[in-house]
């Protein structure tokens, strides 16, 4: 709507302005302006506000996008009401995009899925991609421009201010102007940045990410003289060594890498990789490791050096000519304490396999260590085979840690008079010693574009609401440089602006709409505006052929060889009385940006299973030594800074180290995220963002932690039983044994088939079933959030989770095996097994849960009276009860997130996984409507094809660990998996005859242990 249209519309109704309803409305919507509003004097002001009110009043209604969007899959020429449409878009996180496909019902986006055509999704997503939807409908999202002095304002007021302010600035070339932007790969933003810097040559542009991967970049700069991005082919590697690199979760290419990693571990394939992980905090990747070594974070660079030394000195690896400068370091490494920790098996696994191994290192390692990892890959002959390089964009950009420090320095010297902050949240997540909040207060004019009016926005003079990604036009590059287009699913609900629009506005340039800016950038690369290419790219979500070409940099050691020797001199373990605190991303909140997302807050950490909180993670050994138990509050001090954290005891944490997740303890996140957990950024001071030496002191207090598993600190008896049961519930097989004799590798019991009490059901048509490949599941939790989004599952909050009342229909059980100091971890996703002899069905007094004609164990919500007997009798405990009305006080905005195909359950009703019955029906209706000639020559609906029905969990899974289909068809994917020698059914001995088969996990420990 143009401002003009708004005004003329309201002019005809202005006589209504003095009614009591209107007064109430104003007081409710604009408390700060109520007086002025009701004062008839300022007529112009009134009209302006009414325009805004109209926009806000209309925001909860679904509106049609004004700019043309091409549907992704269905009926581009038209629209059938009630029929979902799919649009391709992309979500960028810290400078790398993942392609998405969003389902929209009647103009309302209701589900996010991965874009199968995008190489870094292949249809899969991670939890936060799924949860982006909830953020769209978050009522806490900032809804209007805010001027610090006067309160809520209009976009036009901001425009008026900005025009005057930046006109004045351009006169001085932008002296005193600085921009602090979050990392972005958007070509359009890069273009606007160039224009911005041309318009304001004196202005400084800084980029900052709290969880930066810039050490990786700087490592490449050391090794090659220029930053290059490393790409690895995990599917082709026989040995993978991850040095503190969580490539399955916290990596820009995690979705793709997870798929590749699993592809390289096909038990029936020719090769099966072995994953070695050396790390401090137990990560998701560490939980997938075949062999894992836990070391303090500070020892990891030395570990890399020692490994190379051992390879060269003991395994006969030849140091390439360019790396001769490393000789002194390799010699020195032989007497390093960590040298002995380099497992001989690891050396054997890496040596003599040119191009069949890969070494990765994570962002907590030093640049020198990264340079050394390049040397390792070079020595092992991997470069050009399993490791390739592309140029990094914006190579001259200073590292994030340096950039924010420079900005803070300038602010401290009052050199910044106008600061534009695009996204991010530096007041919360900048290094604590900078005192960024105080510095920001000194800046005369600060403009903040953000989704929420958060910690940073409250310290700025102007806050501009940012459009959600699903409301935005934009573009972004994925990890390999391919451009993905971001298209809106809905017009901005709260009149938010994208960073492109804000920058264009500050520049005072036309075009000012993000759509036109993106089109301009798109066209710029091809000379001529190409309508057809644009539509093709929109439909696919990706711009073909835009990836960066491979580069062949040459490795040299001049810049860093000396420093490696020096680094070896540093202590390899924390001193007495000190502990090493290792900072890490929160499993689902990442750096804290998702703190107000209930789905992500309630998604359990894959390893601790904690929700709504972070904790000081200690190894059992360390906790015993300090006589601390789970939930004890400890004070952690680093210099003058101190925080309090509850203790969580997790096997696998390196001894005398503390794992602490960032991203919690927000103060201005919103109603959901404020006050959840503890702010660990307060301890992140100085240059080092990876780890810190800290003192630990008990406080004597305890703090309740809410976990979705092990709801209490378990007693010895229970722990022992749990360990014994876990091996029968989650089956594993050693690769050697599997290869030797697949038929007997699982040691399954043979029982006399039980007698059926009653006549089994007959399934002439389809017989739905599921198979979950434990060898493919990484435990990332994307399925949990996907299910939550698809099936309208409520968020219940910390107190209810602590009581054991979480509502997730699919959960991921995590068990530890073996030595608690060097545990092996298994993840087991669990949904309703749709048992043939369902124990739940037999005990329901009102027959509210019954079998349907295709073998689904269906839950009839309307019939359920809520005795909970079914859940008592469910051996898998997958049923969830609505203890309260979980949808009581939802606003009209919040309810828009619900999938219209799925019932929203009332209180007192039991619910559980339906195998996404709505998706089954959707496909069936389409199959029936597609007329084909049947056997008798008459036209009839076609059969449902295998793979056509994909439940939400299976769809989201980055590794396709979940298969769904017709068990009557032995050739179907699920049918083949049920027939696999690896297939087993959990608790089958009770004759419940579950529909879900698990495929045993294959371990490739190798070495001595593997011989067993």
């Amino acid at each position, binding site marked *: 709507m143009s401002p003009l249209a708004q005004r003329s519309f309201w002019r005809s109704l202005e006589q209504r302005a003095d009614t009591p309803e209107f007064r109430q409305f104003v007081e409710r919507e604009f408390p700060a302006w109520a007086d002025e509003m009701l004062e008839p004097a300022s007529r112009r002001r009134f009209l302006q506000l009414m325009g805004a009110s109209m926009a806000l009043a209309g925001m909860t209604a679904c509106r049609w996008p004004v700019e043309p969007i091409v549907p992704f899959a269905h009926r581009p020429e038209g629209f059938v009401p009630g029929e979902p449409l799919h649009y391709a878009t992309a979500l960028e996180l810290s400078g790398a995009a993942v392609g998405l496909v969003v389902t929209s019902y009647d103009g309302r986006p209701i589900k996010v899925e991965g874009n199968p055509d995008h190489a870094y999704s292949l249809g899969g997503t991670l939890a936060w991609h799924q949860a982006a939807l909830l953020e769209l409908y978050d009522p806490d999202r900032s809804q209007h421009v805010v001027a610090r002095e006067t309160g809520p304002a209009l976009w036009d007021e901001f425009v008026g201010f900005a025009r005057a302010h930046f006109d004045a600035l351009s006169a001085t070339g932008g002296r005193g102007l600085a921009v602090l932007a979050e990392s972005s790969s958007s070509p359009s933003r890069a273009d606007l940045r160039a224009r911005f810097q041309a318009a304001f040559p004196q202005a400084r542009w800084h980029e900052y990410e709290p969880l930066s991967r810039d050490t990786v970049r700087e490592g490449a700069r050391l090794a090659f003289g220029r930053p290059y991005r490393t790409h690895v082919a995990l599917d082709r590697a026989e040995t993978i060594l991850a040095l503190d690199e969580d490539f399955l979760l916290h990596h820009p290419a995690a979705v793709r890498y997870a798929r590749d990693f699993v592809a390289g571990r096909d038990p029936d394939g020719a090769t099966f990789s072995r994953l070695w992980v050396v790390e401090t905090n137990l990560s998701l990747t560490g939980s997938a490791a075949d062999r894992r070594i836990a070391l303090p974070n500070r020892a990891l660079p030395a570990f890399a050096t020692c490994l190379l030394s051992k390879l060269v000195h003991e395994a006969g690896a030849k140091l390439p000519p360019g790396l001769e400068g490393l000789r002194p370091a390799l010699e020195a490494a032989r007497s390093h304490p960590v040298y002995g920790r380099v497992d001989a098996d690891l050396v054997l696994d890496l040596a003599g396999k040119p191009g069949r191994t890969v070494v990765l290192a994570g962002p907590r390692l030093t640049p020198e260590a990264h340079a050394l990892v390049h040397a390792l890959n070079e020595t092992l002959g991997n470069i050009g085979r399993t490791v390739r390089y592309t140029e990094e964009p914006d190579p001259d950009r200073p590292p994030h840690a340096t950039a924010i420090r420079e900005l803070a320095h300038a602010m401290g010297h009052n050199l910044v008079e106008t600061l534009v902050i695009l996204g991010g949240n530096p007041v919360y997540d900048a290094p604590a010693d900078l005192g960024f909040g105080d510095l920001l207060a000194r800046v005369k004019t600060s403009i903040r574009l953000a989704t929420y009016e958060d910690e940073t926005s409250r310290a700025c003079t102007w806050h501009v609401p940012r459009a959600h990604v699903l409301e935005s036009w934009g573009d972004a590059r994925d990890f390999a440089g391919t451009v993905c287009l971001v298209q809106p699913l809905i017009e901005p609900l709260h009149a938010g602006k994208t960073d492109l629009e804000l920058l264009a506005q500050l520049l005072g340039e036309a075009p000012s709409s993000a759509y036109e800016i993106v089109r301009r950038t798109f066209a710029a690369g091809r000379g001529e505006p190409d309508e057809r290419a644009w539509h093709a790219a929109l439909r696919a979500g990706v711009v073909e052929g835009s990836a960066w070409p491979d580069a062949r940099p040459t490795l040299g050691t001049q810049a860093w060889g000396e420093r490696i020797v020096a680094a070896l001199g540093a202590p390899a373990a924390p001193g007495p009385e000190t502990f090493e605190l290792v900072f890490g991303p929160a499993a689902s909140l990442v750096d804290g940006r998702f703190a107000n997302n209930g789905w992500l807050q309630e998604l359990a950490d894959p390893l601790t299973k904690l929700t709504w909180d972070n904790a000081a993670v200690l190894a059992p050994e360390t906790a015993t030594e300090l006589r601390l138990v789970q939930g004890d509050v400890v004070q952690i001090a680093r210099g003058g800074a101190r925080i309090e954290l509850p203790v969580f005891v997790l096997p696998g944490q390196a001894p005398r180290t503390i794992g602490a997740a960032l991203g919690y303890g927000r103060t201005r996140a919103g109603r959901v995220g404020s006050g959840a957990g503890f702010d660990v950024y307060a301890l992140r001071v100085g240059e080092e963002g990876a780890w810190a030496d800290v003192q630990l002191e008990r406080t004597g207090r305890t703090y309740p932690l809410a976990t979705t598993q092990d709801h209490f600190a378990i007693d010895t008896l229970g722990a022992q039983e749990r360990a014994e049961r876990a091996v029968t519930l989650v089956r594993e097989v050693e690769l050697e044994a599997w290869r030797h004799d697949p038929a007997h590798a699982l040691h399954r019991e043979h029982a006399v088939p039980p007698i059926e009490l009653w006549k089994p059901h007959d399934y002439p048509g389809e017989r739905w079933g599921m198979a979950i490949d434990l060898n493919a599941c990484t435990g990332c939790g994307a399925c949990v959030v996907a299910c939550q989004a698809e099936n309208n599952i409520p968020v219940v909050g910390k107190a209810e989770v602590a009581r054991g009342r979480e509502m997730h229909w699919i959960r991921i059980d995590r068990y530890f095996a073996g030595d608690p100091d060097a545990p092996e971890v298994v993840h087991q996703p669990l949904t309703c097994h749709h048992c043939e002899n369902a124990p739940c*069905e037999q005990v329901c007094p009102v027959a509210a849960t019954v079998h349907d004609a295709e073998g689904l164990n269906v839950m009839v919500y309307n019939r359920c009276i809520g005795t909970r007997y079914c859940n008592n009798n469910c051996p*898998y405990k997958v049923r969830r009860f609505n203890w309260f*009305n979980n949808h009581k006080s939802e606003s009209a905005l919040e309810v828009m997130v619900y999938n219209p195909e799925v019932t929203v359950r009332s209180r*007192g009703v039991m619910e559980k996984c339906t195998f996404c019955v709505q998706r089954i029906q959707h496909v069936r209706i389409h199959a029936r409507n597609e007329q084909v000639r049947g056997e008798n020559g008459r036209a009839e609906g076609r059969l449902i094809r295998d793979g056509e029905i994909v439940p939400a969990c299976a769809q989201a899974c980055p590794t396709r660990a979940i298969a769904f289909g017709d068990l009557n068809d032995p050739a179907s994917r699920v049918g083949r998996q049920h027939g696999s020698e690896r297939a087993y059914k959990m608790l089958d001995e009770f004759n419940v005859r579950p529909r879900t088969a698990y495929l045993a996990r294959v371990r490739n420990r190798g070495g001595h242990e593997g011989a067993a």
Partner: protein
Amino acid sequence: MAEAWDNTSDDPTRRAPLVLGAADFGSVTQKVAQLAERPKPPRAWYIAFGVSLALTGLLGAMILYLFTTGVGVWGLNSPVGWAFDIINFVFWVGIGHAGTLISAILFLFRQSWRTGINRFAEAMTIFAVICAGIFPGIHVGRVWLIYWVFPLPNQMNMWPNFRSPLLWDVFAVSTYFTVSLLFWYMGMIPDLATLRDRATSRVRQLVYGMLAVGWRGSNRHWQNYERVYLILAALATPLVLSVHSVVSFDFATSMVPGWHTTIFPPYFVAGAIFCGFAMVLLLAVPARQWFGLEDLITLRHLENMNKIMLATGMIIGYAYFIEFFIAWYGGNAYEHFAFVNRALGPYAWSYWIMVSCNVIAPQLFWSKRIRTSPWVAWGVCVFINIGMWFERFVIIVTSLSRDYLPSSWGVYKPTWVELCTLLGSFGLFFTLFLLFVRFVPMVAMAEVKAVMPQADAHAPEPTPGRHAHPIASRGD
């Protein structure tokens, strides 16, 4: 006691009298009927009634809160979907069993001593079943649809699931309540007629008259009465065994380790009789003292009940043992763990409360001195009732809290709402009981008279002076 005549002697050559004191038909009538006829009960009754009524109000408030907010106000969760609700249900249903046993089985076995306590016990049955019936009714998530558990014809042609033990419960408990109520009321008709005839006010005449349904004490009436009484006793007898067996099926037919055991039906029935007798004694000891009924509810009655408690206590002690034996002998790892976890796991405290109260405490009844000391026995009965409540807690909560998948193990902690609801159910029970002692003859006068020596035409001539000449009271 009016006369220090010990009727607890075990001398087999002499039949111990069932009624003590210088009782004749008239004095029995007088003694019992006057309690219901007093214009004002003693102050203690008012206090007790006030407290009970307040607790009943608390029950109502808790139920109202539950209904308006949801079952989440209780501490339940997944995996522990049942706790106080079903514990209280089983507890109260169990309590009721002693009444039916006394009135029906002991009647069929011609145990004449039952007459002193059967009215009492039957009333207790009715009130306990009322308390019990509340819990399954309110524990469901959508309480407004609770009628769906009844097989009511409906336009959807939707019937309940006849395979569900919960449905069997509905039939078992409703049958039980109906038969118990009929039995109690039927047996009370002659006594109600006595009250009608003795009534001094028009209102009492009318009310008792209506309740007495025209009883005139004619021979024909007595004949019909005796026959119906016998038939109802025969009907009620299987119920004593079946109701708690069916209740135990809720657990026994499920597949929860710790629930899925075949010993449950007899074990539950024995437990029910055990705690039911404890509750009768709990009520009888104060009542006989405060209302001066020592001659009618004699020490011998109490001792007999204590002996039954000793026997049934041993049965459930044996059941506790055999459960463990089978858990070991059966070789099922899940069941094995369920029982080890009961005795040594996080809820071990509740298990040992149960064993101490149910197995160890009744051993005191080996001593005759304790059996015949009403208030000591009363104390033991308090423990037995606590123990039996905890037995249900142990069975339900410990089994559910740790079933098959260790990932889904949980803990259950009751909320204040559950505690208040339990307390409130006692309030309701005592309120009903206090109303009973206030308005209804609490001892079956007609039946007691029938077992007095005077009723026996062939009885030896009473010692002169001990009994007055029988005077047929108008009621019998």
